[in-house]
């Protein structure tokens, strides 16, 4: 057998590369961490890459996973080999269809990167909750434990399903396997061709529906027959395991890699055995090898075929000598006797005994434990703890490992210092920012090492949950032996800090082993860097005797034309000082990798990177470590001392990247967290921040309006409050009449600002003598941090502006306290200004349901959450149910609020004797359409409470309990276009049709932004997006017009960057309307392909070109006999193409396929013009025809 070709790819690519070649159709829908599999398939089909039968698979994006499953079912019934890729909630949405597919004995494989299911919280990370939620559907479940196995099992699953007719899920661990880059042996087309039996494929096709040999499936059956018919399937499940065995054997013969249903590793006479499936099995394998070599009688059973579960094969795998078994489940099934795999093994032993195939002299003791939920680490120390537990006379059952459970005390003790990493394995840890290219460069580096040396290589990448200023940690391993360490590096030989700002935030050197090398991108040279290290860093360097190198990569990048991109430079340093390859050879390999990566995009990018490589070595310096520790400054505390205890004791650890250390007792059991915690996480990610020149400010508050992070704010206040102000605090007389005599300040939050510059861009106030100087100008943050921090604290201490005195226009709204602040959204995000505005206008009485997506991630991802509270303790109450059910979920808030209000009114009336008729009448009939009205009602409620204080009658107690519901609540459903146009549209439509008072805010970026820019029905015609790589040729769905068709729905389309006054008006009108409202908000996004500094200009162009008409449709106007539609933007004054030319999403197609681009742009122009015409005509219709006819 010839030596196979090796490739360095991740688990998703390894899987998709097989699936794409052995299927005709892929019906897909993006969901983390499986999205890349669909993207790969789409990309390959777009390139014309064929399957093994020579045709290009049809890759189709559906509107939801439920839709994808339906399309797969139909395509299978049509006879095509069909697959899909999914995870977590996506798999759950497929369940109903999966029952059908299995019930009809249909051959197919779904590839699943297994992920947690949202329970007390959403998690995008890996465990087996989703897989265990489908184990009852009748599908085969085949597990891969590594990237190589994902590649192999993708083929074996297909072979098995074709042989057995049982549909299969091939699964592997989300992130740990799906996203790990590893060196694997590649299965070539010819081998795949040999593995897939054409006769079986023909049989599959012959079972398809065809009018040429008609038949019917999907009948409905009755009590007389259903049961028997269901049992008729049994024989297929009985022989299925053997089909899988056969497939594995044929695979082994053809490919040379051999698998069993249950693979045993370890001493043949092992006494203690772990049973496990997934990536954790590799960690156990590594430990078993280590301890067996030391003479321990231990072993491991890797479960590959989880369903159908073969008792016989498990018994064959377990050594006869087994005395104790620990079954590890990567899932939690609350209320069950045990977790699913544990129960299976216990039951299997009992069955085996009954069947007489039990090989043991005495029944082994079986214990079970949970590990690794949501990608929780499962490392060598933890594996050791599991074996140690088994060694006890009475091993603990139902344990957990990897956490500290100080509540129910189920967790095993773990020796954190236990480490079996051999010295032959290189271990490097690299700290970078999300957007600085560190991850990309490290993927490149590990690929170079894997491709160009004989080493085995592994790259794994850890991300935090922020978009702006996200920290990434790359973990790279390589060495002469296969790498089974499916866990993070704890003791690195090489630590790299790609951003100097981490020095004061992160304990990077906790990863360094003694004698390790520390590479720092530093603005300080080799002679001065030492004095700039915090004391902790100096101490670690001395204590661990580290070698330190520094380079000013930022300067090298600027000097070599790379702009802000330092990744190639840091990569070159890594190769230069790590000595993996001879220096010249390493440089040559880097260049060849650059050529490979960028060659297709053009010589220019290649040359820029070459220049950076060439400019690096002369600037790389080894730092001479002084004898003395000189630093007095230590790292600042993670959070302020003024923070609440929970933030100091729990949140701060999460911020510091030490959340793993938190015990169970630190957490609420039901997922409930306090709001307003972003205020404690001072991220200091802006290099430059805006500085206010009060002398030319025109006090328009537009800066505050556009700020995505509520990091620039406006206040008016009494001049007397300036007593004691910091010396640099700026203040001017307020100019307008509404707060005459007061002072005015625009204040920047220096540590929360991301430096996006939108405020500077929108600032209309220019120095007449020097127009480039505006009222806001960017300046370096570092020197301003201390004084502006003090100023901001003083500013926050000034009283909030009286809500009842504020006029609700752009300027006035910005005097209202934002109750959504400092989120982790991208710098310059186009969505968050709308969310912030919502929070300012209605946040103190808002319930928000948030569809999963960007807005739920920046809205509710720990460690800190941006929804905040005012001084009265009021603020938005927020929850994320799912992606698909958000409109319905939010409508549920309305139902509950209205019902509780009704109950309160009922009680109120019953207690009128105690409360007085006047108060009762006033409360029931209160005008709550204004801020003053709301304030008055709150006062009445307080009077009510005072009057009922001490009244212990059940009605009084209940009324006091519910009295807050007498104040009007504002119900919002917030989400992106993926939710509103696609997956949640059915529910959204129903909620709009319900007539209930629910406000819907659609943050429309025109793509699934959170998962990486996949096309939605909101994607504009002529734009490219993932799954619309050839340019979308269907016009954007006109959600607004569809909603208007109901007649009773308030509909507005807004773009704050084009006309902020219309935006504010739409929000206030929508909220005041006592029926359903929908606001479709243009949200510029990084997925549009331009620097978000220009986001506001792009919004203007979208409106000026007619691509985004602004309008408000208010059914209240129709009731007055007026035309309900008001068009708020003028007829297009620029061509669509002119707008399109400014965004990569459109320009990309012009480069790739100019002819098609030309056609689509012409189509887009027609569509845009046509739509504007329709709106113009609708807005100019004469309404009130009933009155007219009466008059006639």
């Amino acid at each position, binding site marked *: 057998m010839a030596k196979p070709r090796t490739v360095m790819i991740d688990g998703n690519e390894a899987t998709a590369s097989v699936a794409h070649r052995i299927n005709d159709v892929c019906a897909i829908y993006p969901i983390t961490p499986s999205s890349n599999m669909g993207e790969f398939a789409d990309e390959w089909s777009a390139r014309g890459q064929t399957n093994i039968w020579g045709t290009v698979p049809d890759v189709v994006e559906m509107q939801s996973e439920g839709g994808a499953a339906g399309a797969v079912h139909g395509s299978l019934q049509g006879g095509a080999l069909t697959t899909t890729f999914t995870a977590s909630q996506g798999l759950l949405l497929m369940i109903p269809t999966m029952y059908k597919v299995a019930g009809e004995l249909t051959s197919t494989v779904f590839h699943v990167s297994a992920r947690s299911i949202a329970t007390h919280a959403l998690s995008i990370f890996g465990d087996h909750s989703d897989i265990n939620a489908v184990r009852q559907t009748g599908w085969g479940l085949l597990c891969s434990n590594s990237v190589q196995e994902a590649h192999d099992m993708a083929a074996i699953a297909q072979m098995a399903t074709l042989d057995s007719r049982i549909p299969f899920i091939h699964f592997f661990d989300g992130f740990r396997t799906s996203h790990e880059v590893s060196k694997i042996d590649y299965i070539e087309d010819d081998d795949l061709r040999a593995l897939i039996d054409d006769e079986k494929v023909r049989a599959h096709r012959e079972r398809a529906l065809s009018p040429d040999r008609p038949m019917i499936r999907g009948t409905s059956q009755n009590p007389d027959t259903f049961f028997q018919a269901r049992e008729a399937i049994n024989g297929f499940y009985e022989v299925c395991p053997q089909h899988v065995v056969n497939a594995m054997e044929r695979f082994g013969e053809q490919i040379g890699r051999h698998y069993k249903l249950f693979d045993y590793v370890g001493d043949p006479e092992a006494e203690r055995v772990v049973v496990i499936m997934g990536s954790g099995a590799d960690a156990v394998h590594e430990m078993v090898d280590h301890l067996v070599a030391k003479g321990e009688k231990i072993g491991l059973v890797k479960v590959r075929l989880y369903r159908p579960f073969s008792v016989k094969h498990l018994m064959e795998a377990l050594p006869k000598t087994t005395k104790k078994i620990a079954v590890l489940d990567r899932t939690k099934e609350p209320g069950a006797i045990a977790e699913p795999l544990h129960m299976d093994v216990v039951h299997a032993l009992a069955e085996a005994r009954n069947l007489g195939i039990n090989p043991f002299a005495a029944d082994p003791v079986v214990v079970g434990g949970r590990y690794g939920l949501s990608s929780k680490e499962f490392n060598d120390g933890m594996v050791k703890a599991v074996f140690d537990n088994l060694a006890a006379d009475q091993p603990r059952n139902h344990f957990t490992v990897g956490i500290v459970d100080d509540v129910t005390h189920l967790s095993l003790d773990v020796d954190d210092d236990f480490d079996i990493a051999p010295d032959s394995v290189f271990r490097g840890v690299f700290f970078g*920012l999300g957007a600085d*290219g560190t991850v990309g460069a490290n993927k490149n580096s590990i690929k170079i090492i894997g491709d160009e040396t004989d080493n085995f290589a592994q790259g794994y990448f850890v991300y935090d949950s922020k978009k702006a200023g996200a920290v990434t940690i790359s973990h790279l391993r390589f060495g002469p032996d296969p790498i089974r360490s499916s866990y993070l590096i704890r003791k690195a030989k090489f630590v790299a800090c790609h951003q100097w700002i981490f020095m004061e935030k992160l304990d990077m050197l906790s990863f360094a082993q003694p004698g390790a090398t520390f590479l720092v991108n530093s603005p300080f040279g080799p002679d001065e860097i030492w004095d700039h290290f915090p004391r902790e860093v100096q101490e670690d360097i001395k204590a661990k005797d580290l070698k330190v190198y520094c380079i000013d990569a930022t300067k090298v990048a600027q000097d070599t034309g*790379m702009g802000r991109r330092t990744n190639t430079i840091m990569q070159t340093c890594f190769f230069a000082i790590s000595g993996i390859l001879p220096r010249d050879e390493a440089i040559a390999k880097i260049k060849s990798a650059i050529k490979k990566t960028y060659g297709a995009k*053009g010589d220019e990018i290649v040359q820029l990177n070459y220049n950076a490589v060439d400019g690096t070595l002369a600037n790389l310096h080894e730092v001479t470590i002084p004898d003395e520790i000189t630093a007095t400054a230590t790292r600042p505390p993670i959070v302020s001392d003024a923070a609440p205890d929970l933030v100091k004791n729990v949140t701060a650890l999460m911020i510091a990247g030490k959340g793993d250390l938190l015990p169970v007792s630190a957490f609420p059991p039901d997922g409930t967290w306090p709001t307003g915690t972003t205020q404690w996480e001072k991220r200091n990610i802006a290099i430059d921040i805006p500085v206010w020149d009060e002398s030319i400010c025109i006090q328009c508050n537009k800066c505050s309006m556009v700020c995505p992070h509520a990091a620039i704010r406006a206040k008016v206040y009494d001049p007397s409050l300036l007593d004691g102000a910091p010396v640099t605090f700026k203040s001017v007389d307020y100019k307008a009449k509404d707060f005459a005599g007061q002072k005015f300040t625009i204040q920047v939050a220096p540590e929360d600002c991301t430096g996006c510059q939108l405020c500077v861009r929108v600032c209309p106030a220019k120095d007449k003598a020097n*127009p480039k100087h505006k009222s806001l100008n960017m300046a370096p943050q570092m020197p301003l941090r201390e004084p502006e921090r003090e100023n901001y604290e003083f500013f926050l201490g000034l009283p909030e502006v009286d809500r009842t005195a504020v006029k609700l226009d752009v300027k006035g709204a910005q005097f209202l306290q934002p109750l959504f602040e400092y989120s982790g959204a991208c710098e310059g995000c186009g969505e968050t200004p709308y969310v912030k505005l919502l929070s300012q206008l209605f946040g103190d009485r808002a319930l928000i349901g948030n569809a999963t997506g960007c807005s739920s991630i920046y809205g509710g991802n720990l460690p800190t959450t941006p929804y905040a509270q005012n001084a009265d303790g009021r603020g938005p109450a927020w929850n994320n149910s799912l992606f698909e059910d958000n409109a319905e979920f939010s409508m549920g808030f309305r139902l509950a609020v209205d019902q509780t209000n009704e109950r309160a009114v009922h009680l109120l009336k019953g207690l009128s004797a105690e409360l007085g008729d006047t108060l009762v009448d006033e409360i029931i009939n209160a005008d709550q359409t204004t801020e003053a009205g709301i304030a008055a009602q709150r006062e009445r409620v307080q009077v009510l409470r005072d009057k009922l204080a001490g009244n212990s009658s059940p009605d009084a107690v209940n009324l006091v309990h519910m009295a807050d519901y007498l104040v009007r609540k504002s119900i919002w459903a917030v989400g992106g276009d993926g939710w509103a146009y696609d997956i949640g549209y059915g529910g959204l439509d129903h909620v709009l049709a319900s007539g209930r008072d629910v406000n819907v805010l659609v943050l429309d970026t025109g793509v699934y932004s959170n998962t*990486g820019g996949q096309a939605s029905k909101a994607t504009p015609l002529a734009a490219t997006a993932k799954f619309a790589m050839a340019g979308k040729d269907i016009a954007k769905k006109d959600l607004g017009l569809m909603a208007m068709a109901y007649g009773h729905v308030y509909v507005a389309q807004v773009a704050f960057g084009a006309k902020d006054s219309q935006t504010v008006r739409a929000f206030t009108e929508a909220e005041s309307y006592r029926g359903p409202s929908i606001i479709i908000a243009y949200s510029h996004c990084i997925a549009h392909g331009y620097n978000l500094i220009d986001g506001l200009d792009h919004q203007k162009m979208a409106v000026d070109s007619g691509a985004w008409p602004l309008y408000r449709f208010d059914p209240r106007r129709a009731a007055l006999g007026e035309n309900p539609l008001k068009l708020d933007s003028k007829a297009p004054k620029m061509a669509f193409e002119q707008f399109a030319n400014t965004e990569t999403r459109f320009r*990309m197609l012009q*480069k790739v396929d100019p002819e098609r681009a030309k056609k689509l742009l012409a189509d887009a122009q027609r569509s845009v013009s046509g739509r504007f015409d329709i709106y113009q005509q609708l807005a100019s219709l004469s309404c009130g025809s009933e009155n007219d006819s009466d008059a006639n």
Partner: protein
Amino acid sequence: MDLKTKYLGLELKNPIVVGACPLSTDVDSISKLADAGAAAVVLPSLFEEEIMAAARAAMEMESAGAGFAEASSYLPNPDGYHIGPGQYLEHLEAAKKAVEIPIIGSLNGTSVGGWTSYSKKMEDVGADALELNTYLLPFDADETGANVEQRTIDIVKAVKDAVSIPVSVKLSPFFSSLPNLAKQLEAAGADGLVIFNRFYQPDVDIESLEVVPNLRLSTADELRLRLRWLAVLSAQSGLSLSATGGAHSAVDVIKAVMCGAHSVQLVSALLIHGPDHIGRTLDAMEFWLKDHEYTNLEQMQGSLSLAKVENPKAFARANYMKMLDSWEM
């Protein structure tokens, strides 16, 4: 009527060349221009600066999406998404295949490497000649006029070393001694000059206090500046000359040729009147030449150059001097 002329060593069937403009951005339009009678087409400039900015932007976009758990990128990665001169070169190649007339590539570089490599690439795909668009506005008070001239000369030398097709240089009128620069450029290997570049003349907005980009089409008045310098340069230089800016009609073309132009580039007139304007202009030229008993265009070529015109001082002096001249005995 024989309207043939020789420009940059290329035999042109008439002197009308389509200057760099949007009309030559697609092949169909170039075919129409050729059918209408254009003798050659200059493609719009390839701007190295734009390519490099796009390259940097592409890298920024790529890393903007690489560091997040849920998104490994934010834009698709289609085959053929190429940042660089590829599309320009494909266009040049397609234009060459589509028409018989010469196609002249135009280039605006920012680095010596850019000037030479892109020139070579244009030559490789079949450009008949190159027009170097040395759009240099010297804003730096520390840079001398000689330096500015030397940069242009160095570019020409480098490009001429790299390619064997003819090379012309599109100049601005803002040089202190155009004849001397022309002489140096000729020595550096230039084959021709294109005079003059019409710079964008930005406007300012007094409300927003901003500079507003503004492109206005040329008017026939602008031709006068060209006529003077054509007359001056053609009298003392062996360079092939092309007039650009202000030629709208047959008379304009004739004037330019008489002053020494070997070709005349039309842009604004074509944007206003369409490609068919070329045919009408050629018809009118033929009529005029016949009417004035010329047998071919060559007869008039340079007839009003500084060397041949009856009163050369008229080119040299400002208008008011003319009145004084009339008193000169």
